[in-house]
């Protein structure tokens, strides 16, 4: 799986490309964690628009990052999931703790507004 990182202000956007399975998850986890450290990002957006396959490894990957970031005062969002991926994340109740937006720009806007208020 490829990851393209983008930074907008305090937010790190991780655009995932390809198939996210138990085999890919280990390295995805490591690359996101080191990018979070390198950019000293406060917020994290997972962009799933170009993810063609995901199994339960995705739940673990997302919730693991959530736990890691949750220790500080941070925001997280998920954008652009296909229906089957949204289904899987829903089964684990991921969207009851992490917000879903249609685009990364929308998520960043919400983060910015939170910071101002």
């Amino acid at each position, binding site marked *: 799986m490829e990851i393209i990182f983008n930074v907008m202000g305090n937010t790190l956007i991780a655009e995932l490309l390809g198939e996210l*399975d138990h*085999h890919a998850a280990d390295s995805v986890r490591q690359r996101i964690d080191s990018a979070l450290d390198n950019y000293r990002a406060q917020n994290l957006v997972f962009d799933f628009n170009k993810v063609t396959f995901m199994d*339960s490894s995705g739940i673990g990957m997302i919730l693991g990052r959530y736990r890691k970031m949750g220790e500080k005062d941070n925001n997280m969002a998920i954008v652009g999931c296909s229906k*089957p991926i949204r289904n899987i994340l829903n089964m684990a109740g991921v969207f009851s703790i992490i917000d879903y937006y249609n685009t990364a720009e929308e998520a960043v806007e919400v983060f910015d507004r939170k910071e101002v208020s």
Partner: protein
Amino acid sequence: MGKELKVQLEGILENQGLARAIAAAYVSQADPTVEELTEVKTAVSEAFSNAAIHGYGMKGGTVNMEFAFTSKDTVMIKIMDKGVGIENIAMAMEPLYTTDTGQNRSGMGFTVMESFMDRIKVDSKPGEGTAVTMIKKLDTYYGI
């Protein structure tokens, strides 16, 4: 039925993509919808990764997969390992239950299999291995 397929794969995570590609190719014979194909691939991915991760503790071992159509639109998939086996099957199948001590597994593999397939049966004995049998009826357009 005359369409059975038996495949033997090494139970390592590198083969997870191959396992679901084989499942997709087999099920495609029945003209499933795109959504059904994704569901079957995901369920196979879960069962295969469990064999590699839990059954064989990431050290490898043989995984056998069997595919059959029990009727023209119903597929049966069986995934078997000869790994450590499961002590308490009912508990293992509970949502969020995992024996993983790290932070990386959600314990949702069986829940995903259950919700994407119509039926699932798990046979397992500690020390002998695990067999996961899954059945799904497909909304075929043309039959086979």
